[in-house]
């Protein structure tokens, strides 16, 4: 077992990066989904306060998962970074700008007293748009990173071949966000934001499927292994769509955890399928891997760090779920304060 682990530590490191990405997708899609409640405030209903209160602490932690994904790539695979940086230059730039605007919106909606701005359609539209652009750029970047597209391919005339993969990723996220809103936001699947997500994910799945079937021979001619990865991801993403649309016996919590598991399977399966390559056929995980002494310390740090972080996260989410319960039953006088942080 130990010998097997030693021989495959690059795979373990890839899966660890995937774990951070998975956590980011789970928490961020819920948060992004709930921004629709800000865009359509009249649709929030009796649990309006709980939506905002639940999101406030969550988003503080969300970006750390994404930073964790980036830093695990940096720490474990420094040799991959020149490729990664070149391939992701545009999505990373878009992500930074969109996330900056999103943070500005968060400041205005959660910390400021400017109610007139908060109520304006433009401000709400900017918030939702920046949140989705950040999510799209992250999905775009993650897709590029996970399927290991070469910078040459990315920058060359075949760059558009990534479109179906990105659409699939977005469709999965949209479906996930919709179910997350049902669970955390208290909306039911017939309300407009959730329905909008479902409709969007169906259209995106259909568009990407058409595109994919039309273009896959060309893609396969240039990069067979990545095409295999794409095929697998398509199958799993379709399962994701079916699960989201079926809503698993109309129980949001069951659907949410099932979708989270499916997204995890999607990421981890694609990573393991690609192994031993990071970028086929140019970079193997072993060739981009860090020094053995560094990797050993990184794994120990990771285990100890997760021992600290997982219970802390549990405390955070438990506290806020309890807090929201009291808001729902009207037992908390702060309810009238809406989504503001009062000091």
């Amino acid at each position: 077992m130990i010998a097997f682990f030693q021989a495959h530590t690059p795979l373990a490191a890839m899966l660890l990066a995937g774990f951070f990405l998975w956590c980011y997708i789970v928490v961020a899609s819920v948060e992004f989904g709930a921004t629709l409640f800000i865009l359509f405030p009249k649709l929030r209903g009796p649990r309006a306060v709980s939506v905002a209160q639940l999101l406030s602490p969550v988003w503080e932690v969300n970006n750390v998962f994404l930073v964790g994904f980036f830093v695990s790539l940096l720490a474990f695979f420094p040799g991959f970074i020149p490729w990664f940086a070149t391939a992701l230059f545009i999505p990373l730039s878009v992500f930074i700008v969109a996330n900056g605007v999103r943070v500005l919106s968060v400041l205005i909606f959660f910390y400021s007293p400017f109610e007139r701005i908060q109520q304006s359609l433009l401000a709400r539209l900017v918030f939702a748009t920046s949140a989705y652009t950040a999510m799209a750029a992250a999905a775009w970047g993650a897709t590029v990173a996970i399927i290991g597209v070469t910078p040459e391919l990315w920058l060359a005339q075949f760059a558009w071949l990534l479109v179906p993969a990105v659409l699939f990723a977005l469709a999965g996220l949209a479906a996930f966000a919709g179910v997350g809103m049902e669970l955390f936001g208290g909306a039911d699947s017939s309300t407009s934001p959730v329905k909008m997500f479902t409709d969007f994910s169906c259209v995106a799945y259909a568009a990407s499927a058409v595109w994919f079937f039309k273009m896959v021979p060309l893609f396969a001619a240039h990069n067979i292994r990545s095409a295999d990865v794409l095929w697998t991801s398509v199958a799993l993403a379709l399962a994701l769509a079916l699960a989201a649309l079926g809503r698993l016996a109309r129980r949001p919590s069951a659907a949410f955890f099932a979708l989270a598991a499916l997204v995890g399977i999607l990421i981890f399966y694609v990573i393991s399928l690609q192994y031993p390559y990071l970028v086929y056929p140019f970079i193997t995980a072993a060739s981009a891997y860090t020094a053995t002494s560094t990797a050993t310390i990184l794994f120990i740090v990771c285990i100890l760090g997760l021992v600290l972080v997982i219970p802390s996260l549990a405390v955070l989410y438990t506290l806020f779920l309890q807090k929201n319960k009291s808001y729902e039953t009207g037992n908390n006088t702060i309810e009238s304060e809406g989504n503001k942080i009062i000091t």
Partner: protein
Amino acid sequence: MSPDLLWGRVLMADTLAFHIFFALLGVGIPLLVSLAELVGMVRRDDDFLQFARRWSFAMGVLFVVGAISGTVVAVEFFMLWPGFVAFAGPAIGVPMFLEVFAFFIEAIFLGVYMFTWGRWGNRSWRHWLSSLPVVLGSVASAFLITTVNAFMNEPSGIVTQVVGGVQKIVQVNPWQAMFGPATLPETSHSIVAYYTTTFFVAAAICALALWRRRGTMETNSETTRYFSKGLVFCLTLAFACALVVGFTGDASARFLASHEPLKLATIEQLPATESHAPLRFLGIRIPDALSELVGGTPQTVVQGLAAFDPALWPPSFIHWLFDGMAASGFFLVVVPIVYAVRRNWRHSRIMFGLIIAAALAALFSVEAGWIVTEVGRQPYVVAGVLKTAAAFTPSAGVVVIALVFPVLYVVLAVAAFWILIRHYTHHAPLH
């Protein structure tokens, strides 16, 4: 220097200057808030509890902006300097990865702390305890990231070799790389400077509030008492930290003499290697002082610029920034002493003005200190091993983001301060 590289360096400088401002407050405010709440509970003083609660709002707002600017710094590492990450990854991977967990703890408990005021009663040790992970997480983040910078200034624990025309680390001891000779002087000096600056900024805000109340009906009100207590509390902390910064600054200068002599020669504009080296401070030449400071005796030989290849000399303007930083350091020690000694000045415009000037000087000295550290290492990104130009990205489009990102920083900074000013001017302390 190619135009793209110049734009890349300008962008990185903009990003770091913006991030450092929010990061230093992100490190300092958690300690300020935690200490104020502790004092409030021990002394059963509601003014201190309210001080902590009011400052926790600023902590949240500044953390939001600091978190995004920190994310941008991390992402720009990849985007602009892939050659640096590819080279130094095996050495800097451990502190970078540890920092993720420190950041996690800080972000998680910041949420817990901010949203649980009053949840367990007015004075709750449980609530105060939740501030400790925020304090520890923020200081750990600062420490770990600064160890990366210390490695860049004085790389250790690595064996390098040119493989296929590219400089690579072929052997690494990650702990030695992390705890190199520059780590202790650099981390201690910068972290204590962050605390000093935060305490002076908090003191300046109290001073400003008192200044505005001078000559009004509110002179003897509970609000005035609240701000007066806050001012004394912050100035006391700031004074203690400013003294420590003086000692750590002295240790840092001695470290430069022994490990980064070219940077010291540039900072002091010392033309030739000599004993009895003079110190040039704000245009004044003090004979023998540099030799005294470096080695304790006037006979100590200090290396001058002539001992190094002129192509490797860093820009000379860092001399003035260093002098400005050192002068600010003296000023920061003097202001609290004046406040303590001249009792009849305590509620005067002069005193309030001095305290506000001290806060601005503290902010300047942190920014100037980082510019001296970073520019003083040029043309290298990892001193003596990897040149900045060799680490730069080949990607096109750097000019575009170098023009767009700073606009975003300005908008974010303006929004954050607008919200803070608006909040505090409309929410006076409650009694």
